[in-house]
């Protein structure tokens, strides 16, 4: 009852000077508005990020060979060749937490159809399991290659949408022949569009083929050369002493023609693969899957207990965590900026309350004369400051929410209404009112009624 009366008195006192009250609360309005908008936009982007990551396959694990090192210099992940297709099969067979696994061999080379050519971003040699791991099993057209194709090293491939657009200009590529490094591949299927991934990489700029075909026919065509330009350059370079900068490898054996290479590929010593993509049963079993795979691969690679892993396992959950940490950091940063504006707003409140206390000295004296105690005066001015801040807070909530809706509408940013943000804003604005209203209110409560009544 008394608090209610005090709040009403405070409202009346503020209504006596509405323009000043409005300008005073502006700081709080902007501060709270900024907090609300930041929190809503932050929540929206982090949840849309989570969705993106989930659609990328949050339970996918990538196993890559470890680093090679020589004389204390390490060459980074993937510089040794320790993973084999048999590792992949063993993982699938012996790790119960793994749902499916596919070996991956990569190549980067030109693809030609008719008079058009294109260098796809991603050229993967793999098994049909890859489609399952990537949640890409439904094809737009045609059908996937089979395990038999992998065993035979058949020259078949699946194309991503970007390649279809670039090479075939919209006509159906199924059944057509394309050439990859002068080896002709039959297109047997077209992948569904996946769009860009969260790093902005076009996931449709892809060509999938059996890993045996890529390994033996496209990249690993001989023991001595893995690189097309090096092999062509080697054929017409004369080994001479006048060559000051011999950059090329010296061939120990006579160069074989490409026809010979295509007809009779020399087997590599052991078939290493570049990475294994494995899918855990679900996102919750990722750590279990990592444990099982680590144990299995260490055993298969004959590593002693004190030796480091010669492979590394990356999970998307780690990526998810990193990214959500980043967004949290961004949100917190913006929140800190918004908080600063709240503090500035609070100083404004304090300033105006001090002016108001001075201006109303006689009123304070009168109230004391008719029986107001110091704490009644303190309460009155404190409530006034809090009412000011809460009103500002309410307007800030409307402004901030409106702002974030506008951002959603105009910039198409994802936005999420967060009740927590609104509760925080209310608490913070009341807190600002109490903190910055306290000093002026305390000052007023310490007035001497006689002096105050005599104040002009």
């Amino acid at each position, binding site marked *: *009852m*008394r608090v209610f*009366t*005090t709040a009403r*008195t405070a409202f*009346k006192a503020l*209504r*006596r000077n509405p323009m000043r009250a409005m300008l005073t609360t502006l700081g709080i309005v902007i501060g709270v508005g900024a907090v609300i908008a930041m929190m809503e936009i932050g929540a929206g982007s982090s949840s849309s990020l989570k969705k993106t990551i989930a659609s990328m396959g949050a339970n996918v694990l990538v196993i890559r060979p470890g680093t090679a090192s020589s004389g204390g210099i390490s060459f980074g992940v993937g510089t040794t060749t320790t993973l084999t297709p048999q590792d992949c099969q063993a993982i699938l067979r012996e790790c119960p937490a793994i749902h499916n696994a596919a070996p991956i061999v990569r190549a980067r080379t030109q693809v030609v159809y008719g008079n058009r050519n294109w260098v796809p971003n991603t050229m993967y040699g793999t098994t049909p399991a890859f489609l399952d791991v990537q949640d890409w099993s439904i094809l737009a057209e045609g059908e996937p290659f089979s395990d038999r194709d992998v065993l035979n090293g058949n020259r078949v491939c699946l194309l991503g949408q970007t390649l279809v657009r670039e090479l075939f200009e919209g006509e159906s590529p199924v059944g057509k022949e394309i050439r990859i490094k002068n080896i002709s591949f039959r297109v047997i299927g077209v992948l569904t569009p996946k769009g860009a991934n969260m790093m902005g990489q076009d996931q449709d700029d892809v060509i999938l083929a059996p890993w045996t075909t890529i390994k033996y026919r496209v990249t690993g065509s001989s023991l001595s050369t893995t690189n097309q330009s090096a092999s062509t350059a080697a054929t017409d370079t004369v080994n001479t002493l006048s060559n000051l900068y011999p950059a090329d490898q010296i061939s120990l054996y006579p160069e074989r023609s490409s026809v010979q290479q295509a007809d009779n590929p020399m087997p590599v010593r052991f078939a290493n693969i570049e990475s294994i993509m494995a899918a855990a049963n679900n996102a919750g079993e990722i750590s279990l899957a990592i444990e099982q795979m680590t144990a299995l691969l260490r055993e298969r690679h004959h590593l002693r207990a004190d030796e480091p892993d010669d492979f590394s396992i990356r999970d998307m959950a780690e990526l998810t965590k990193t990214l959500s940490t980043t967004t949290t950091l961004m949100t917190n940063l913006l929140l800190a900026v918004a908080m600063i504006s709240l503090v500035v707003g609070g100083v404004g409140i304090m300033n105006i309350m001090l002016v108001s206390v001075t201006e109303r000295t*006689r*009123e304070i*004296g*009168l*109230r*004391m*004369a*008719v*029986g*107001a*105690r*110091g*704490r*009644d005066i303190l309460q009155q001015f404190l409530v006034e400051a809090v009412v000011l801040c809460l009103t500002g807070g309410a307007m800030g909530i409307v402004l901030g929410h409106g702002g974030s809706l506008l951002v959603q509408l105009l910039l198409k940013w994802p936005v999420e209404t967060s009740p927590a943000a609104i509760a925080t804003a209310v608490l913070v604005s009341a807190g600002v009112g109490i903190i910055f209203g306290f000093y002026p209110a305390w000052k007023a409560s310490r007035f001497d*009624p*006689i002096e105050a*009544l005599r104040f002009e």
Partner: protein
Amino acid sequence: MELIELHGIEKTYQMGDISVPVLKGISLSIRQGELIALTGSSGSGKSTLMNILGCLDRPTTGEYWLDSQETSRLSSDERALLRNRKLGFVFQSFNLLARTSAIENVAMPLSYAAENLSDREARGRAAEMLGRVGLADRLDHYPSQLSGGQQQRVAIARALINRPPVLFADEPTGNLDSRTSEEVLQMFERLNSEDGITIIMVTHDPKVAGYAQRVIRIDDGLIQGDVPAAGPESEAQGGAV
């Protein structure tokens, strides 16, 4: 015991190293129902005495018994409570809250009262008080819409809202013309005779003092004269001590 009793009240202000005695030992007793004028030249100490009587200030030494309660050693909160319950104040400059209606001005002291009246009860009591001072038709007027005399009557209604036994008036007619002054003074007389409210007016206007039953003259911090006034009203009342 009388309503108000002062015993050897002294008040000394400390101005740095110099102590300035303002009241130099005042003893006084006031009965319930008196209408008193406190006069004296400026600087005589009558305002200080008024502040002490009104429990706004504490004496340096001496005892002040108000309604059988020794008040000179009360804390400021206790004095605030006392002012709220037992004392009413009317000021020279009215001191109404601007942009606040008459009825809300009158009801204001109720919000500090111990008895928690509901909003309707408070408004009812305030309206009744305004009726008693003849402003029943001005409840929702703002001070700026009222004449000086009307404003002072609102202030009187405000002073009486908690039904105090004592009413202090500090130069109540100082800002009024002679006609409205008379209205206000007649109202004081009526309140005094009809409701038995003890009224203490501080004034240096002999005309105002003429309405009192008893005139106390202060000079240089001491009571120099304490006489029953020779007004016609005071004779009708049967004089004073």
